[in-house]
């Protein structure tokens, strides 16, 4: 967390102060990225205590860089200084879902993919001295456990094991809770910056409680699945780009850039979300400066290409889930499309999982279009682009279509749910005319 906050403070630009919730939310995710990357790269040359010391040194340097930035005048504010007690209480409603999910996380066991795909890698890494050996990736008998999936979450869990000095699955529970808290913190900050209403920020941050899937009752993010970190990172990208476009906050652009690089490092599906993030950046950017857009694409592109190269060097056997793309196959499998779209509509309308979240979204989009004009294209692109891209792999799946849809479609939709909540929240309020800094100025100066 400290290393992540160091990264966030170092990357923050502009005069606008950083919200404490932003620093903690983005900081947790940046910390997971930095530590997992340091373990993955350091593990090539080092094992055991030497690796831990090396990673601690990296973290220490980042903390020092963050402190230096604080010393040079980056302001961190809670955003509650000018709030009346009732408004502060409303803002604190965001803590309720964190408490609820915390209770669930310590009640449920890791299971299914959470155990045999993600935590499995963490245990293997710990038993191998801190990082995964090359033989792990080339083992043909464990391809079904998705050994070629990226390592952000497993190596973050591995870091816990290294710090505790033993494999202890109960000790990993807070990792999931921290990702959930980070998602809520970024949602709260995004809503507050875009609406400047404590009420909307508090109430909408509490809405995950109304959906079983988002509050840990279903789907399995409390069971260790990676959809929650992916959803949190995608929310960070969209919230950052939206703030940059509406409020002109330079720091928010940098945060979105960092989070977009994290997406493909969490899971391979992250590449689809990264493509969605690029579409959002294109909409937000309005083709002002191509250099900036290329720089935005760079972290994600580096992660995708780097991981592909690493797998090729490690001779990882390819996963046998999808046919390779060909025009003939596309034409042949095109009759699958109505089935896939029908399954998507049914899933979105399934109130047992999602309540009325997805049914409210079209109304939110319409409201945003009327109230905010072109800026409304950001959340619309953020939801529709990945949703359309998510459907393409099903056309080429080798698995029985019904089984594949039933076992993964809800998880793909989950990745977009926090952005849907952000859109709904922002649509509730008219655009703000005065700059953000005015709200964060000390009361005496206001």
């Amino acid at each position, binding site marked *: 967390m400290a290393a992540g906050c160091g990264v966030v403070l170092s990357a923050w630009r502009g005069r606008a102060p950083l919200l404490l919730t932003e620093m903690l939310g983005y900081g947790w995710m940046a910390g997971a990225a930095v530590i997992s990357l340091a373990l993955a790269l350091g593990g090539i040359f080092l094992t055991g205590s030497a690796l831990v010391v090396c990673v601690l040194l990296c973290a220490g340097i980042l903390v020092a860089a963050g402190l230096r930035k604080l010393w040079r005048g980056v302001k961190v504010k809670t955003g509650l200084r000018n709030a009346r007690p009732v408004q502060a209480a409303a803002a604190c409603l965001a803590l309720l879902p964190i408490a609820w999910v915390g209770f669930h996380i310590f*009640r*449920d066991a890791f299971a299914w993919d959470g*155990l045999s795909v993600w935590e499995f890698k963490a245990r293997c890494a710990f038993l191998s001295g801190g990082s995964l050996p090359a033989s*792990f990736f080339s083992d043909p008998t464990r391809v079904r456990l998705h050994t070629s999936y990226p390592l952000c979450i497993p190596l973050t869990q591995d870091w816990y094991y290294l710090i505790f000095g033993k494999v202890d699955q109960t000790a990993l529970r807070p990792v999931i809770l921290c990702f959930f808290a980070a998602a809520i913190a970024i949602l709260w900050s995004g809503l507050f910056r875009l609406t400047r209403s404590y009420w909307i920020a508090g109430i909408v941050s509490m809405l995950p409680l109304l959906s*079983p899937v988002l509050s840990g009752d279903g789907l399995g993010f409390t069971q260790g699945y990676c959809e929650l970190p992916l959803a949190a990172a995608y929310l960070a990208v969209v919230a950052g780009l939206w703030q940059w476009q509406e409020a002109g906050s330079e720091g928010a652009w940098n945060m979105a850039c960092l989070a977009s690089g994290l997406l493909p490092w969490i899971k391979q599906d992250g590449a689809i979300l990264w493509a969605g993030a690029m579409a959002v950046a294109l909409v937000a950017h309005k083709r002002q400066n191509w250099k900036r857009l290329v720089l935005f694409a760079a972290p994600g592109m580096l992660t995708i290409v780097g991981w592909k190269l690493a797998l090729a060097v490690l001779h990882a056997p390819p996963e046998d889930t999808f046919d390779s793309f060909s025009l003939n196959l596309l034409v042949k499998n095109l009759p699958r499309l109505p089935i896939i779209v029908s399954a998507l509509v049914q899933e979105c309308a399934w109130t047992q999982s999602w309540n009325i979240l997805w049914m409210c979204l079209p109304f939110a989009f319409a409201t945003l279009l009327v109230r*905010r*004009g072109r800026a409304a294209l950001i959340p619309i692109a953020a939801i529709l682009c990945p949703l359309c891209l998510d459907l393409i792999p099903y056309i080429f799946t080798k698995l029985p279509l019904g089984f594949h849809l039933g076992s993964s479609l809800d998880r793909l939709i989950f990745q977009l749910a926090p952005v849907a909540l952000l859109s709904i929240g922002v649509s509730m309020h008219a655009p703000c*005319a005065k700059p953000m800094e005015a709200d964060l100025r000390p009361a005496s100066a206001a």
Partner: protein
Amino acid sequence: MRPRPTFLLHILNRTAPWLWAVALVIALAIRIAQRPDAQIALTSRSALSSVDSVLFQTLGQPAASERILSWLSASVDSRPLLVMLAPGNPGANQTAELISYLAWPRPVDLMIVPASVKERYVEAAQGRKYAGVCFCSLHVAPDPRTGIGIGPALTCASFSGPRP
């Protein structure tokens, strides 16, 4: 740039708060009426608490990871392990994956075999490239609440063969 106020915007500003309030009430009512999905509850405080909890739900035996680990470590033979599982049973599938989890770094081959012919496969596997075999079958009195069979349905055996 903010859009100019229009008739549509005026209507929206008047009605939207009420529409959102109604949506919130409906969502609250739906949530209250929902029953939570059954998750796998933590039933163990061991280091591998989640593995033990999942195996307890599928096999009905506490501290199963410890027993499987001791069985695995008893064999000095480092050849792969063969895990056979009965078809069409998610519980058996997860048990097989957890045996693969616990057996790491030993390679584990998974094979779906109907229970009726498993003896033939065990004979074929014995003395060949495998160090041992596990058979996961959970077709034992499924629990009507969870749909998962409960019973001592995991059988494991080590083969005595030439050391690699």
